[in-house]
């Protein structure tokens, strides 16, 4: 991909190219390819064990694909160590929440800004002027996000004591704090009730529109995916089953078969 193509604006922000992941004898992902375009919400669906989380973990560099490539703005991310993924603009949340349990909500969100600043231990310890100015700016940003997600009341609470739904919002806040270009959400609706899912859907759309992020949404809750996604990719047994608009994917016979089984089974 050349700079010229990127400049045209039709190049994908993130491109998954023929990615396969093999654990021992098990093929968790088998030649999956798709593109994510700027400003879109892409829904990734599939039955349990379809490879959604595996793909997610490849994107955040927790797993190394056995073959294939993942390109962010035309550049492969596979040579980067995991701790240098945040700085190119990829942020994520986890299905089961992976917050720092013994840190406060505010500190958890503040850690999220780590990749945005670059001070070293010496200037940090001596509290040099530029470090303090940078910190003041980041703190403003952190407080803005805490307010954005309605976490003001619990800002100083240690997260391990908070309800699961609130913890999920804290994790979202931590991901937002880094101002990522791409936000990966792993089952954000898991464990939420009907009303909360509705609110979450609106929130995800607001994040996309107001904070200009591109969102990859892995979700079991079909209603949520179908109502907010611009584009849907369906996986089954590690392969891409179907891809298209929510309506197209919903009508795809292979997808219906994967979810409901077929008559002749």
């Amino acid at each position, binding site marked *: 991909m050349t700079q010229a193509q990127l400049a045209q604006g039709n190049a994908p922000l993130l491109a998954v190219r023929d990615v396969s992941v093999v654990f021992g004898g098990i093929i968790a992902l088998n030649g999956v390819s798709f593109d994510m375009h700027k400003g879109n919400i892409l829904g990734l669906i599939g039955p349990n064990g379809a490879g959604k989380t595996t793909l997610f973990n490849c994107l955040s560099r927790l797993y190394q694909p056995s073959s294939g490539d993942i390109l962010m703005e035309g550049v492969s991310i596979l040579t980067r160590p*995991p*701790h240098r993924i*945040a700085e190119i603009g990829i942020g994520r949340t986890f299905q089961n929440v992976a*917050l*720092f349990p013994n840190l406060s909500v505010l*500190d958890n969100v503040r850690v999220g800004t*780590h990749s945005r600043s670059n001070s*070293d231990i010496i200037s*940090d*310890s001596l509290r040099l002027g530029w470090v303090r100015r940078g910190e003041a700016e980041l703190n403003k940003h952190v407080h803005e996000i805490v307010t954005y997600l309605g976490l003001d009341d619990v800002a100083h609470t240690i997260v391990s004591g908070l309800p699961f739904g609130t913890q999920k919002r804290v994790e979202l806040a931590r991901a937002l704090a880094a101002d990522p270009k791409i936000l990966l959400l792993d089952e954000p609706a898991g464990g939420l009730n009907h009303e909360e899912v509705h609110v979450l859907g609106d929130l995800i759309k607001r994040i996309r529109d107001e904070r200009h992020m591109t969102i990859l949404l892995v979700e079991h809750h079909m209603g949520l995916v179908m109502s907010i996604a611009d584009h849907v990719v369906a996986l089954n047994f590690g392969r891409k089953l179907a891809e298209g608009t929510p309506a197209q994917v919903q009508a795809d016979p292979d997808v219906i078969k994967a979810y409901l089984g077929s008559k002749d089974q």
Partner: protein
Amino acid sequence: MELFTNQVLAGIATGAIYACMALAVVMIYQAIDHLNFAQGEMAMFSTFISWQLMQWGIAYWWAFLLTLVISFVGGIVIERLLFKPLAKAPVLTNVAGFIALFAVVNSVAGLIWDFTIKQYPTPFGSSPFLGSQLISTHQAGMIGVTLLLLVALYVFFQFTRIGLAMRAAASLPESARLVGINTSWMIALGWGMASAIGAIAGILIAPVVFLEPNMMGGVLIYGFAAAVLGGLTSPLGAVLGGFLVGIFENLAGTYIPGVGNELKLPIALALIITVLVVKPAGLLGRPIVKRV
């Protein structure tokens, strides 16, 4: 009554040293979940370095600062060379690494500076503190330096970006990497800081126990006892534990018949076992719960 106050104050003074050692132990335990058995030897080596610098005519406080820098860098080097390769190795491999480090550092110190006991100066003097017979100026200095150190560490961990990153890396390394923290480097920093804190402990206790390669043996065991008592996950607990162990050691030596000076050390060991049986998380530590 005067004997009692006297012993408590003396206990707080030696407790300050245990607190420093416990702080160093906790720093590394937080970073890599192991107890560094060589912490005391590293501190002893640092103390020898400062002694050597003073022998070469460098003034006390310059030697002190220079030793902290050398120890900090030395701690990082030890982590990079010896323990980074062992990061994924089983616990026992790490323990063997610590014991090897213990033996090597101890012998190298003996080789360079031999095993004769050396005088070590104190910058605080040893006259009575504020005209009181209860405590000497050096003891007061030890307590003061320890409290200063605790405040500095608290500010560093609570209010700086790197401090927060170190706490996050100790709390959940996977998530820390995802927000862009180089967790491997945070572990090295933990080693550097632990090594420098140990150097402070060594330099403070050297005027009391005199300088020689085996000077930290007993001190480290009290440091472990303090860390366990305070809770291995809490720096504040480590300092509190240090003072408590110091007081307890002195009072037991004075009031329990038959204990005296000779049986003081087993008291520390008994304390470790008692805490582990009764309250494994220590005074301020958080209980470690594993999902199985």
